[in-house]
């Protein structure tokens, strides 16, 4: 085996600007995708739980399709398929010094739409896990449904879903590599490009793996810290959490790359 240590160290500790740009894109795409996923997830969860059969079925359908098909297929479909059918076209978007290429937009949208389905299920589980007694007490006090949701159920559900959502973001970080297929120069595509000039696949991909390991580990530590902070804000950390939360094993809840 040949392992080019100097090259490896170079790539690990002094990567070129292109790679750093890739790192930035990985983070940008992941965070934006997650934000869209969160924004979609809550209304879809509410639709799924709503008494209107149309809303509930629409939400079910969305979740089924998003979770039943591969993300890679969704990415290509959204970027190229929709445009091919003349439905949506992604044009570069400029605002002063900032600009967002069309394929980056499409990648973020695809990741976000996919994530939305998983978020919806997490939110649904969280809302369902809030003790029914809480809702009933709120209703009995004369609160209208939206107020019950906003003031009583959601604040408690949010605590429950924090951990699963946090775990899901690790998956998002890893999934962001898939947008390389539509030419978004995130870390993987940059690495591939560098590789096409240097052919140091082993060293380059080792370094890339370490970068991802660092990202996911940092996030995991951050998540634990956030969790502890939130618990510390309560008198009784254990009791303050609805029981439902205990069912969400942090290990099982993250089950896939």
């Amino acid at each position, binding site marked *: 085996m040949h392992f080019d240590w100097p090259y490896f160290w170079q790539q690990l500790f002094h990567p070129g600007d292109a790679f750093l740009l890739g790192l930035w894109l990985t983070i940008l795409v992941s965070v934006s995708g997650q934000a869209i996923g969160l924004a979609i997830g809550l209304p879809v969860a509410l639709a799924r739980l709503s008494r209107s059969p149309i809303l509930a079925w629409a939400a079910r359908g969305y979740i089924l399709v998003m979770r039943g098909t591969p993300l890679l297929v969704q990415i290509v479909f959204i970027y190229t398929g929709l445009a091919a059918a003349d439905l949506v076209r992604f044009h570069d978007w400029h605002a002063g010094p900032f600009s967002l290429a069309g394929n980056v937009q499409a990648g973020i949208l695809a990741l976000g739409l996919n994530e939305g389905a998983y978020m919806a299920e997490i939110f649904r589980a969280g809302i369902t896990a809030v003790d029914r007694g809480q809702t009933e007490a709120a*209703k009995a006090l*004369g609160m209208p449904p939206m107020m019950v949701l906003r003031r009583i159920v959601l604040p408690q559900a949010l605590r429950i879903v924090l951990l699963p959502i946090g775990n899901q973001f690790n998956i998002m970080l890893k999934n962001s590599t898939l947008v390389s297929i539509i030419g978004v120069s995130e870390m993987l595509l940059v690495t591939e490009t560098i590789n096409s000039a240097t052919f140091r696949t082993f060293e380059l991909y080792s370094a890339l793996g370490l970068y991802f390991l660092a990202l996911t580990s940092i996030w995991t530590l951050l998540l634990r810290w956030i969790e502890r902070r939130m618990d510390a804000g309560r*008198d009784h950390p254990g009791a303050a959490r609805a029981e439902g939360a205990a069912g969400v094993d942090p290990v099982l809840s993250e089950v896939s790359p």
Partner: protein
Amino acid sequence: MTRGMTDVVIAAEGVEKWFGPRKILDGIDLSVRRGEVVVLIGSSGSGKTTLLRCIDHLETIEAGRIEVNGQPIGYRARGHRWVEDRETAIARRRRDVGMVFQRFNLFAHMNVLDNITIAPIRVRGVPRVEAEFEARALLARVGLPEKEAVFPASLSGGQQQRVAIARALAMHPAVMLFDEPTSALDPEMVGEVLAVMRGLAADGMTMVVVTHEMGFARQVAHRVVVLDAGRIVESGPPDQVFGAPRHPRTRALLGAVLH
């Protein structure tokens, strides 16, 4: 003392409640006057909880009608038919009814003061200072003046239940419904909650109380109502119901409870 019709706080007529194929309430007629304390007893599954929930429209009813303060709750007339009201309208009607649950149901993410003030502020639109002022008075009344900043999880069951009573009172309800308010409590804490309820009764609060505490019923109730399989089988002053029960189910029930 004669009371006019306006003094009837709860008027239920021919109430039927079905869960699927099972009839749980079977033609309930019950009227509760202002200031009256009614204790509801009955064996497990006889429909006591369901009746209280129907009064607050936490359950729909399939037949009959229920009025609180002279107005139907949960339903409105549309032509000759009764249809379920809009949720916001139901919510408004529910303010007249205070409900205390067996399992307290304090809002877990709020401290005691917020638990008590949230409904007055958000539902009744009371200014915060005013709501907090009143909440502190209520906390003093239930014997917990120093607990306002504490979260429910760090209170004992008895303390939680007293906060729950204060929370319901903060909405100035016309009637308070209690569903076995002491049966989830350790024996040491039952007394403190019953004491608060005694105080309420003494202040003239209209109350419907489901309880197995026969001592409380004997002392505080103006009337004891016995439910069996969704029907009212006996109703009268505590001395009469406990002393000379007429219905065989009442006798069996009292035998079991007083044992």
